[in-house]
């Protein structure tokens, strides 16, 4: 609702039956003034008053972003008289595309300076121009202006990353969604700090990295504010605000005087098919672990070095060292003889395989030394044999020959043993088994519906917002969305005397306790017209049922 000082004349007039309605239309040259200056209140230049050209203003205040993908625009259509009898001429350039316009409403009994702005926007397109004919002197121009949200309808946004930092001092473990929305408005929509009336909302995101990617600006703001139960809107001054969309919020106006101010209240016939079930999907801020069953990760044939006392190697679970696994263990397919193998997991990507081969190495060394000494012995005996043969010591030569033969046999046997020990005994085959895993974005969702529905009776609507990351928030928002869907066919048209306070998304209460949530405000302002506004509303509360509840004494512990 608009801000009107309680107790002020204007507020009193808005609630009274006596009206002297007035309006004022101001325009600014877009080549000199930015709409930002009007919104943040820094404009010192007064607007050009074209009120005396204006014969009628049709005002249409729509609720922007009812559903996140249907931004509807606030607009005014001016009917202007080119020559209002004062010798003045209205050029089309004054109401043509780009010109900034503001509508102010008040009462003849109030100073013009105290009237309140009810619309700030920009003319679009070429104004209609009817020069009139000799038979029909209803000459005039028509021009339509749209609210500031029109500028951002097609503007795409990709923000930077809003990151949490649990390791910082102090740790940053959440970011308020209002802060993100304000940042988007400031950095990506060009709004100044004084134009953004979105503060911290008390609802935070707990995702480590948050980013809006390739989304229309207003939709990006809507996604940030939806978990808070709000939506973005530009107010009458062109400032960005977060509007509370709770159907049961406190009413902006309560009619208590037998509804004299209410001219007409009509339930609109409609064939709106009401959804009775909503699905709301969010994303948990704690990643889900997708754990695979125990399986072979690495198959490893091992050949130890000839004289290695141990074999140690880092084993990764994939060729690119990126596969994660847990509960890893070693399986031996073919054991290296006289060796023991151990496996130790170092981190989620790899572990260390250690094989103790010192017994095998010692055996090889012994065999090698034995073979080497035999070879040396063979060489020495051969030398001695040659010497003895030259000295013709036949008996000694025969003995040496026998020894030589024995030594050669031993050498051959030890050589075979050595070759066998090196080629065969030192080979093994091992496998690393474990459970590969990865972390993924887990979706959480709730289907909220009215009780007792048969499957064929379900009419469902789906919503998604990844900022909603826990069960309680999911349930609460889904309940609000379901309420909103259920009242969509409870359309009422209410005609009341023009009330400056009321705008779309406000709640009003009539004298009998009925409450209505305003969707659209339409009014036609003219010098001689009726000073009424038409509200298209959803009925959200029935006063008669409140009376039944108020009259009931249902406690079983009544004070007697």
């Amino acid at each position, binding site marked *: 609702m608009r801000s009107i000082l309680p107790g002020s004349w204007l507020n009193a007039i808005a609630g009274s039956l006596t009206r002297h309605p007035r309006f004022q239309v101001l325009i600014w040259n877009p080549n000199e003034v930015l709409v930002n200056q009007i919104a943040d209140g820094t404009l010192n230049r007064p607007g050009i008053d074209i009120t005396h050209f204006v014969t009628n203003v049709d005002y249409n205040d729509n609720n922007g972003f009812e559903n996140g993908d249907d931004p509807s625009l606030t607009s005014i259509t001016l009917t202007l008289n080119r020559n209002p009898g004062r010798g003045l001429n209205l050029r089309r350039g004054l109401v043509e595309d780009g010109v900034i316009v503001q509508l102010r409403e008040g009462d003849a009994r109030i100073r013009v300076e105290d009237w309140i702005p009810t619309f700030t926007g920009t003319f679009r397109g070429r104004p209609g121009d009817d020069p009139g004919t000799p038979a029909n002197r209803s000459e005039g121009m028509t021009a339509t202006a749209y609210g500031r949200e029109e500028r951002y309808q097609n503007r795409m946004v990709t923000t930077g990353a809003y990151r949490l930092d649990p390791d910082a001092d102090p740790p940053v473990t959440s970011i308020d969604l209002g802060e993100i929305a304000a940042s988007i408005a400031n950095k990506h929509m060009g709004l100044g700090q004084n134009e953004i009336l979105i503060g911290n909302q008390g609802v935070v995101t707990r995702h480590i990295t948050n980013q809006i990617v390739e989304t229309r600006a207003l939709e990006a703001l809507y996604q940030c504010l939806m978990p808070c139960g709000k939506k973005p809107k530009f107010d009458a001054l062109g400032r960005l605000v977060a509007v509370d969309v709770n159907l*049961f919020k406190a009413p902006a106006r309560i009619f208590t005087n037998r509804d004299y101010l209410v001219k007409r209240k009509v339930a609109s016939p409609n064939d709106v098919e009401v959804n009775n079930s909503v699905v709301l*999907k969010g994303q*948990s801020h704690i990643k*889900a672990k*997708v*754990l*695979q*069953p125990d*399986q072979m990760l690495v198959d490893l044939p091992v050949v130890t070095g000839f004289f290695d006392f141990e074999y140690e190697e880092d084993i990764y679970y994939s060729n690119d060292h990126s596969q994660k696994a847990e509960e890893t263990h070693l399986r031996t397919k073919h054991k290296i003889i006289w060796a023991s193998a151990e496996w130790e997991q170092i981190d989620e990507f790899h572990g260390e395989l250690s094989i103790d081969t010192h017994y095998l190495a010692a055996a090889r060394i012994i065999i090698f030394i034995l073979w080497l000494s035999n070879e040396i012995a063979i060489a020495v005996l051969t030398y001695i044999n040659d010497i003895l043969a030259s000295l013709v010591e036949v008996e000694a030569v025969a003995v040496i020959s026998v020894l030589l033969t024995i030594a050669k046999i031993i050498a051959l046997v030890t050589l075979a043993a050595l070759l066998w020990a090196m080629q065969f005994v030192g080979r093994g085959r091992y496998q690393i088994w474990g459970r590969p895993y*990865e972390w*993924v*974005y*887990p*979706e*959480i*969702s*709730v*289907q*909220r*519906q*009215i*009780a*007792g*529905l048969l*499957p064929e009776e*379900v009419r469902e609507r789906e919503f998604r917002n990844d900022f909603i990351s826990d*069960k309680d928030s*999911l*349930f609460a928002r*889904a*309940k609000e969305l*379901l*309420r909103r869907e*259920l*009242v969509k066919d*409870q359309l009422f048209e209410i005609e009341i005397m023009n009330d400056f306070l009321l705008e779309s998304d406000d709640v009003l209460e009539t004298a009998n306790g009925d409450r209505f949530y305003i969707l659209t405000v339409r009014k036609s302002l003219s010098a001689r017209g009726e000073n009424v506004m038409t509200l298209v509303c959803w009925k959200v*509360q*029935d006063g*008669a*049922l409140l009376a*039944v*509840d108020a*009259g*009931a*004494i*249902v*406690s*079983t512990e*009544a004070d*007697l």
Partner: protein
Amino acid sequence: MRNVAQTGRKELEAHRQLVTGVTASVPRYEVVDLDGNKEWVVDVYIGPLEHVEENVIFSVLIAPYARELVSDIGQPVLLERSKQGKYSVIGRTKNQTSGVVFEGGDVEEPTFWIVRDNFASLRLRWLPDLDWVLEELQDDEDAPLQADPDEPLQQVRAFDAFGLQVVGPEATEPEDFPPGSLPAPPGGGSGYSPSAAKGGLYSPIPIETSTSKHVASFPSKFGPKGDPDAMDWGVSELQPMILKVIIE
């Protein structure tokens, strides 16, 4: 006309839909047509639906470039739904659909709930067109305020536009009130009907019921015999996969 292939491809892409899911079986090589041709297929769970038991697509063909990526049960995968409505697994994804569990059927972290509210829970009791009748506190000054300590001081009853009672003890416990034992409802009507009570939909007491629903797929246990999660020795194959819905 421009490049027909380009136009055709764009049109196909316009109808192409990407769906995320989770494998509900291990990939298997099986016959896919009557000629006996075989291909690698896998069953995929595509997300929760309240009135559909498992919501699993069976025997989805795996694209050849995705074959090495999709190797096991419980893997988040990406499916393509073509213009002709055919699904195929085209890769892996980092988004896990809600409502699935694969650790032996134990739901450690629920991800999908179904919540049912009555009108009172939503503060919309006035939505249906009902006649609400509040019982008199006392018929006369000598009448007891309550016959039973468990009874409310004033009974609230409601009747729909046809005169059927939808709120009140007669509507929810009809066996205690034989037909004809009560005066006719206001505006006439045929009396009460328990079906009209519809699980407390119209009750003035806020009622909210919440259940979680998950699809579990896991290899059957080895025993004990007769356990619904155990394999049937000598009858079924070794450790066949079990697919079941867990509602808690």
